[in-house]
């Protein structure tokens, strides 16, 4: 009887074997890489807000401190999104006719909150606390990047548990004088790690890595 398989089938067999092997290694590997890409983390992707609020303008041009609007950042877990009232502290005088600001005025008049779109978020089982970080000299920039250079705010860091742990294990690089936390241009003199050690002592920084520090 005629042979079922011809020599070329051997190569086929070998190739298929190889594919299986490659897949076994490649798929998990590929996923691990993918999970770390900015795309998968939703970074570098400006988020449209209902209101064209420009951080560049307010922080750079007007030189308004982050903590003027996000004014619970140093006493509460949440940095705080400014109430409409706060916007109007200035905008009742400045640009009080600008059509751009119509939603703000409407919000105030109708007592109906503005609805912003969330940029950063941590899972429900993660209890991040802004106050302690700010009070121990972790700059806004460390997690939020150069917000003063963003037209629309975008996620600047991966916000993975690894990201948090890196800093909690070696905070030095991200420390600065408490007075400078909101300063976007602050640079440590000399070696950041050495000055970081100094600051850690000054600010009495004791980072913790026990699970319940963040998970409760």
């Amino acid at each position, binding site marked *: 009887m005629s042979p*079922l398989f011809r020599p070329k089938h051997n190569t086929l067999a070998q190739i298929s074997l190889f594919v299986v092997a490659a897949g076994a290694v490649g798929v998990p590997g590929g996923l*691990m890489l*993918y999970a770390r890409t900015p795309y998968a983390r939703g970074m570098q992707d400006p988020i449209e807000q209902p209101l064209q609020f420009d951080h560049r303008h307010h922080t750079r041009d007007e030189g308004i401190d982050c903590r003027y609007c996000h004014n619970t950042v140093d006493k509460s877990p949440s940095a705080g999104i400014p109430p409409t009232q706060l916007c109007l502290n200035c905008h009742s005088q400045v640009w009080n006719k600008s059509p751009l600001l119509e939603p703000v005025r409407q919000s105030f008049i109708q007592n109906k909150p503005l609805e912003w779109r969330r940029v950063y978020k941590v899972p429900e089982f993660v209890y991040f606390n802004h106050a302690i970080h700010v009070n121990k000299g972790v700059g806004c920039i460390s997690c939020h990047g150069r917000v003063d250079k963003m037209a629309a705010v975008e996620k600047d860091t991966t916000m993975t548990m*690894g990201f948090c*742990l890196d800093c909690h294990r070696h905070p030095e690089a991200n420390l600065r004088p408490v007075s400078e936390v909101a300063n976007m241009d602050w640079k440590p003199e000399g070696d950041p790690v050495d000055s970081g050690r100094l600051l850690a002592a000054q600010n009495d920084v004791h980072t913790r890595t026990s699970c319940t520090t963040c998970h409760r």
Partner: protein
Amino acid sequence: MAAPNLSRDPLEPLPLLEGKHTDKTINDSLLEHVWRGAGKGWWALFACALSALSLLGIAIVWTLYKGIGVWGNNIPVGWAFGIINFVWWIGIGHAGTLISAILLLFQQKWRTSINRFAEAMTLFAVICALLFPLLHTGRPWFAAYWLMPYPSVQRIWPQFKSPLTWDVFAVSTYFTISLLFWYLGLVPDLAALRDSSKSKTKRMIYGLFAMGWRGSGRHWAEYKWAYLLLAGLSTPLVLSVHTIVSFDFAVSVLPGWHTTIFPPYFVAGAVFSGFAMVLTWMLPAREFLGLKHVVTLKHLDNMAKILLVTGMMVTYGYVMEHFVAWYSGNPYEYSEFFRVRQHGPMAPIYWLMMFCNCIVPQIFWSRRARTNILVLWFASILINVGMWCERFTIVITSLHRDFIPSKWENYSPTWVDVSLFIGTIGLFSTLFLLFLKFVPAVAVTEIKELRHELDHDPTAETAGVTH
């Protein structure tokens, strides 16, 4: 059926092969059941198996949809049927590897006619067992996710202090090796099937699986090596797997679990239940597939002896457990073994276990019993029951009465628990019936080999008997 051996002089050893054979006759007789169309009996059995299997499906879906709460588990009985079934099936899986690997290394000729059979059962048993570790967790999707290599953005890895983590590796390794071993042994027979098959598609399929086996001298040389190698690999596994499974209990602090004797007696128990299960299935198969001439009373006799030995090892394990519980003077241990197990709410299971695992095997002191098909069959079934009860006693009886009486609770299974158990039996039977249908139940080539050896070496028979 038991007629021939009655006429036989009791001193004359039983033969490994009944009657005179040529390669041809062996081929025909052993491949015959594959080519023969499925009979009514097979379909009937298959229907039962499938319905049980569908029960399994329902139970699994319901469990995943609602949660473990549909089982009877509670606090303190955190583990119940899920783990019992897991350990039971894993144990059953041991006979195969033992027969194929260890007996091979010890050059026990009588293994040849039953190893294929046993290996297949190993495979199917392990598949049944593998259902549970994932299913019994509260969040299987995460269990898979945390324990497999995954995109670790959390910088947290599995905890290697936990025996459950060891399990994952032990069992999956065991499964892989058993699969390879079984398949490798199958290759020449698949080739034989390919060559003797009538239709082209059949030839195609068997051909693919035969991986171009031609039976050339070189093939055989390589094959022998590979087979021996795998045998060497799986021998330690036979011991390691159930040792590690026993650690799931032994490393805990629970009275009834916290015991150093667990590894040896789990392994013994595993072989015990494994052989019992092989007998339970082989006796009918031998009858209906016309394998009497290759699976002779000699084989049954030997297997019965193994049941006797391992049964006594298990018994020894029980005795030591109780002795240590008394000798240690630990009040919790003592009351676990002498009050809770013997007089507690779960006592009947305990006594049933004692009867099936310690008393029943004793009948195999008698040669008549060892070679009486019916006796063998019922005994083997009782032993399976007994071994299931053992796991029940270890898992549930120990858990439901531990240190502080205020949190003692009773346990009662739900319909889902029962369905899962019956369902796995269904799964096992389904796979097994398919196996009988599509591949030779006996390693044809090895039988031929055996025949040649026997023909050329008149002492071979006795060689087969000596242990």
